């Protein structure tokens, strides 16, 4: 791994009775793109807020680019970009003024590019922020987060209100940013097709825990669905790594993690046409594991 860009260790965070984060640890190298997935309330937003230094964890530490998230020097803050769900924008300001107010905080702000993007994304520059549609407002939030070409981008469901065309354009901007291989991103999204396009690594959270932290292609290769027709599965020997198991009139469906090629071949030989082995895409994996 190149220099670690994000380093989190044993993060715990509690809101009243709810454990938002539970022993979350990981290290991300520069240039990696993380897809953060999980059900509502799994802790994705909390994790991103801790990473950004907006929320202090009860225990544990969070570092960005070698500094504690809570105490980033200004020179590093300039290299960050965020899109959060509760965007804090000034509703009474005109869009152009808002762009300039945010831009004033960055040395590498590219005003030309901001205006060009706003034009391309149909964000009306002379309107007040409060009068924008939800999608336009989200696009403005994205624009404000990427125009200074940040080194670290934290995106919390950035495209949830965007139409398919705008979403693809937004993804295109992220790809363009990623092309120099030096920008680190954490993208939380329920749009798993988008995550598959962009992420090289997946963080999967469940009830505050980071239950999967793995390269996307290894995850895809490692989760296998085994469907045994009829009562064939009854004679099945004990299998390693079964994460899900259900039976219905058709037969038995099992989902295994890293069952191993020898096991699969042995099963194929033994059960023949009564066994269907299937690889899964990210959406299907999420449905099985979440």
């Amino acid at each position: 791994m190149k220099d670690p860009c994000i380093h989190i260790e044993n993060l715990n965070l509690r809101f009243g009775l709810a454990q938002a984060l539970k022993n979350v640890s990981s290290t991300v190298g520069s240039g990696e793109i993380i897809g953060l997935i999980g059900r509502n309330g799994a802790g994705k937003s909390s994790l991103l807020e801790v990473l950004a230094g907006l929320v202090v964890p009860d225990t544990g530490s969070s570092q960005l680019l070698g500094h504690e998230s809570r105490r980033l020097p200004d020179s590093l803050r300039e290299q960050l970009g965020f899109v959060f769900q509760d965007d804090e924008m000034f509703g009474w300001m005109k869009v152009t003024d808002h762009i300039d107010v945010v831009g004033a905080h960055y040395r590498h702000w590219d005003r030309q590019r901001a205006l060009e993007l706003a034009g391309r994304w149909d964000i009306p520059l002379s309107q007040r922020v409060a009068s924008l549609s939800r999608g336009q407002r989200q696009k403005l939030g994205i624009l404000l987060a990427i125009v200074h070409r940040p080194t670290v981008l934290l995106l919390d469901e950035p495209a949830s209100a965007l139409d398919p065309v705008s979403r693809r354009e937004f993804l295109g901007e992220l790809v363009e940013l990623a092309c120099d291989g030096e920008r680190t991103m954490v993208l939380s999204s329920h749009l798993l097709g988008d995550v598959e396009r962009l992420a090289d690594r997946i963080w999967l959270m469940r009830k505050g825990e980071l239950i999967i932290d793995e390269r996307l292609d290894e995850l895809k290769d490692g989760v296998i669905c085994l469907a045994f027709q009829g009562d064939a599965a009854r004679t099945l020997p004990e299998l390693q790594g079964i994460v899900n198991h259900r039976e219905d009139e058709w037969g038995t469906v099992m989902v295994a993690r890293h069952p191993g090629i020898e096991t699969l071949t042995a099963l194929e030989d033994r059960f023949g046409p009564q066994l269907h082995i299937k690889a899964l895409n990210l959406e299907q994996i999420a449905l099985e594991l979440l």
Partner: protein
Amino acid sequence: MYFDLQSESSTPIYRQIVEQLRRQINGGLLGPGDALPSVRQVAEQHTINPMTVSRAYSLLEAEGLLVRRRGKPMTVAAGLATESSARQRLCLLQPCLEQVAREARQLGLSPDEVVTLLVELMDKEEA
């Protein structure tokens, strides 16, 4: 250069690129010295992570199918037995034929019926 990439497939995208390039090189569609589009071009055209593309290219480079030269586009290696044997090329087709075989069986079709349709489809491709 044409890639048909499905982001929501169970096959990782880098492997889709690898398989498609391997088919085109083995089938002679891409010949020695032919240049490939840059990582950036493929990533931007398909809106996918550039690392995915470069991983696919590197894999084929390690296999000796592609050659990387500083500051120039990746090219198909020279001196490859480009027209690999029919048997090797058939191997590349096997995964999708296995699926056809499975589905034909589910539909209760005979091998002859399937082959007739396959011949028709290939004639159409040729035309």
